[in-house]
């Protein structure tokens, strides 16, 4: 799960994850509910290591969630249990058919807003995650949060974080009126990793990061939206 505030670089990180996969010959898919696929494909060109063959050869596949909902007849405000199962089946079928090994759902927050019960959200994410992992697919679930400060939840609904194998938090630290993007790996099952805040820059070579200065990580005593 990649959780972050707006403008923190979640989608860029996810796109790099896909393009890096395509670069090594993996089939990748991006389900977008936050911006049109055309716009997303425009943004993907920013990477110096991207080339159009990745799309022409079917290595990068972008799906608009709205289109998927229409296919499934899910043009409704809220989803019930059957709808959720239909959605999981559709995503798993696409992953299976294309042989996707890297998947991004952007964002799981937008998608889960249609699911009214917390239990159903938990079931949806747990079942989706389980089915995709058995297919050998690594999934990034993008989660939108309004605060990445110390006391904030790492996900919108509070259930996503318990299900995910890994949690990456992205946000901003405000330092004397300037916003510095940060990335922090809170959890990554089965991996020894740093849990420190890292400052990031979004470049054509991808997301570059360096440990955030210890004397500057919380210099304003709070992150972007307060403690």
């Amino acid at each position, binding site marked *: 799960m990649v959780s972050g505030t707006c403008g923190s670089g979640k989608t860029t990180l996810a796109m790099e994850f896909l393009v890096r996969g395509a670069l090594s010959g993996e089939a990748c898919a991006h389900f977008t509910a936050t911006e049109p696929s055309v716009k997303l494909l425009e943004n993907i060109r920013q990477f110096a290591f991207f080339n159009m063959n990745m799309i022409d050869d079917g290595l990068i596949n972008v799906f608009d969630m709205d289109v998927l909902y229409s296919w499934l007849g899910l043009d409704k405000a809220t989803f019930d249990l059957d709808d959720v199962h239909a959605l999981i089946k559709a995503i798993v079928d696409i992953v299976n058919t294309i042989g996707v090994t890297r998947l991004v759902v952007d964002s799981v927050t937008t998608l889960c807003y249609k699911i009214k019960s917390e239990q159903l959200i938990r079931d949806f994410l747990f079942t989706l995650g389980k089915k995709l992992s058995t297919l050998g697919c690594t999934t990034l679930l993008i989660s939108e949060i309004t605060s990445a400060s110390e006391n904030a939840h790492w996900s919108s609904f509070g259930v996503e974080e318990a299900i995910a194998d890994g949690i990456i938090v992205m946000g901003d630290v405000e330092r*004397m009126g300037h916003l510095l993007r940060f990335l922090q790996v809170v959890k990554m099952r089965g991996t020894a990793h740093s849990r420190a805040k890292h400052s990031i820059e979004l470049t054509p070579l991808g997301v570059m990061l360096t440990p955030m200065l210890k004397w*500057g990580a919380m210099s304003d005593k709070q992150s972007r939206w307060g403690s």
Partner: protein
Amino acid sequence: MFELDQRIAEQLTSVTLNSSVQVRCGNSNAFMVTASTIVPLMQMFEMSGVYICASRSATEIIEAFETIGIDVSHIHFLDLVSSGILGGTDSAHPNVSFIDSPIMLESILLRSLYALRISAHDRNFVILDSVNALAIYNEEKMLAEYLHSFINVFRKREVLTVILNVPDQVPPSVLANLDLYCTDLIDRGQVVIH
């Protein structure tokens, strides 16, 4: 006729790519010392690299070099000054990029690393001009921590670091740390009593 300090070039013959050189200058000789450092690096040692402009805008520094006949078109300039000036980020030079503020220390490091990664040269330097300018905006402990990290990051990558400062205007703890971390000292500064 602009005259370079040839003793600086002689001193630079003893540094290696993973050295970090502290260059002390005074208020009146800052540009002469900077030019006397950068010219041998480019011309004698055929190096390229990144110039971090925290004291003056990149355009001003480029023009100063051009005035004395030094071509710096293959050096990438990171300008930390111009974004703080209204309309200051207009530049006719393609080798300049801008960072919002000298407070964004980690961004300076990452953008320098990015510029080096896209550089076509094998032998590179990073010049920080200057510690004094960074000290205006950054708290003493944070600046000392940053310089420690900055020097080690580039040393590990075999990129020569050159750190300019006017010593009697640098916080004592920062200066003490520079003395500790830097491998070489070129001292053209004013007399300082610690």
